């Protein structure tokens, strides 16, 4: 890279320079082609920011292809347009599974989608991180956000286990924790297909021995894992997308909703088992 002359230094904008280096014409074309409506400055109501997404793609490309060597099967099950809920198993202490899932959907050869993720409510209070996550499409998991996004034909990634899944110790790997019922209610109320996804490999990226709960409580965060590896290990990750599941909006009571949640959970369990049986090596 040629350094700008001293006279030009005042015109030199490090942010623009970084953008030019990271964001290739392919990424520009990919983001421009997304079936997604944004306002006059490239934002949507929830803070999705085209520029941030472009940088996000550039950075995640290396993680996805080289570091975690992700393999995705069944991407043809994700609808190329219209609303959808992508529902998967959660693991790995850090939401690395969400990042990789998002990248797989953004680069889906059957139709790229900018998926939204639901994040914990404390994130918006953290400087930089809150804005960064918003810019990449993540929003706090509020039912109103979900409802309005589905009405706007968005794709939403949901981990119904929440922190029960991501924060669980290594001894409980690939055991699905209790699912919340909210996503089935949303799918029914907004006539949205559920695409189950089984994620294999993220459990091994950050094995945890347990959580230091008093410290977590003190810090106001869901868990503080006891982890031998302080950064995500380069485990191979497999994503298995299943066929869309649709529910009519005719559940009479919560028991019936819970039964439908179990249907989705079973589908995810099968997809996880499929990924595990196909996996030949962990790293």
């Amino acid at each position: 890279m040629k350094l700008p002359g001293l006279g030009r230094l005042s015109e030199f904008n490090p942010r623009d320079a970084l953008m030019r280096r990271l964001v290739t014409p392919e990424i520009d074309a990919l983001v421009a082609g997304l079936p997604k409506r944004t306002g006059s400055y490239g934002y949507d109501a929830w803070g999705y920011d085209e520029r941030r997404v472009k940088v996000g793609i550039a950075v995640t490309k290396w993680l996805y292809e080289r570091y975690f060597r992700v393999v995705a099967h069944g991407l043809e099950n994700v609808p190329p347009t219209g609303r959808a809920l992508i529902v998967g198993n959660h693991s790995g202490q850090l939401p690395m599974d969400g990042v990789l899932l998002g990248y797989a959907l953004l680069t889906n050869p059957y139709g790229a989608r900018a998926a939204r993720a639901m994040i914990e409510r404390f994130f918006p209070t953290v400087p930089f991180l809150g804005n960064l996550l918003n810019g990449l499409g993540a929003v706090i998991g509020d039912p109103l956000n979900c409802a309005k996004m589905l009405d706007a034909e968005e794709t939403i990634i949901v981990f119904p286990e929440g922190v029960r899944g991501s924060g669980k110790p290594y001894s409980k790997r690939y055991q699905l924790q209790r699912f919340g019922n909210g996503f089935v209610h949303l799918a029914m109320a907004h006539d949205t297909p559920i695409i189950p996804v089984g994620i294999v490999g993220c459990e091994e990226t950050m094995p945890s021995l347990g959580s230091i709960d008093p410290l977590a409580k003190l810090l106001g965060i869901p868990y503080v894992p006891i982890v031998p590896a302080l950064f995500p290990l380069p485990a191979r990750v497999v994503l298995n997308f299943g066929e869309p599941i649709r529910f009519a909006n005719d559940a009479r009571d919560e028991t019936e909703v819970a039964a439908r949640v179990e249907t989705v959970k079973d589908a995810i369990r099968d997809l996880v088992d499929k990924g595990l049986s196909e996996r030949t090596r962990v790293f």
Partner: protein
Amino acid sequence: MAIVTPAKKQKLRTVLITGAAGSLAKRVIARLHGRYKVIAVDFRRKVETDAGIPSYKVEIHKRGFEDIFREHKIDAVLHLGRIFAHESDRSRRYNANVLGTKRLLELCTKYGVGQVLIHSTYMVYGASPYNPALLDEDHPLKASEATHDLVDAVEVESLANIFLWKHPELNITILRPCNVLGPGVRNTMSVLLSRRLVPVLIGFSPMMQFLHVDDMAEALVMAFEQNRPGIYNVAPDDYVAYQLAVEESGCRRLPIPSIPPALPRLWSRALNWNAFFPPYMVNFFKYPVIIDGRLFRQTFGWAPRRSFNDIFGYYRRQKAVGP
């Protein structure tokens, strides 16, 4: 001006407009003048108006206000007047805004006014990290939870709501616009973007919505003429991050440390930034309050005609020609 015959003059409806000295009210008056008999009221000064517009300098929570109702047969009231937090102390502001609105609504009931339009603000929802985006009109008004300085705005709303249900004959419409900007507008956000150096909180750039004052004036006129009582958010279907809006308005950013949360408030208080970055508004520069304006747009067939770039362009040009 066309010569109006006395017989025709009788038919004109009489509209009382509060806050008449403000930029928004002036635009509304210009649009209504001729088609209605307009009466201008402001607590700040007697507004210089066109011939034929009676103008009063009066505080609406004081006794003299009722004389206007005795003197004129008022058909409709557009209540646009409001004392901003930087214009007065808390108790005086509470008296003028809350007790003033109560007095106004009582007089409207007493003198048989058939329509009342109240100009509220999106700030009544309050800025909180837990806010979802695209708030509907039935979302709880949590502004007073975080700060005492917005209690008056929330109470004006609840008062108006009581009258809305108790006195349907008043045909009350409450409008909650997003940030209104443009020439002559003197609210906090407009004063802020008129500056060359603008405070931003490090690591926070919430989404915001803006409306040009001309678009808001048109929204008010449409809501008034179509008369569909209720509560409406008024906002475009467009969004921009605060720090980008600051840059696009030709301002330089002054980064302020944002943690611990009390620090920016202390800073604002110490430097007396009340007019453009008041302590009570710090959360609005941290967390988004994005409202869903769909109900208003669809009910009244209104859409803003000026883009964000048109709005920011005004502040850019203002700096280019300024001192």
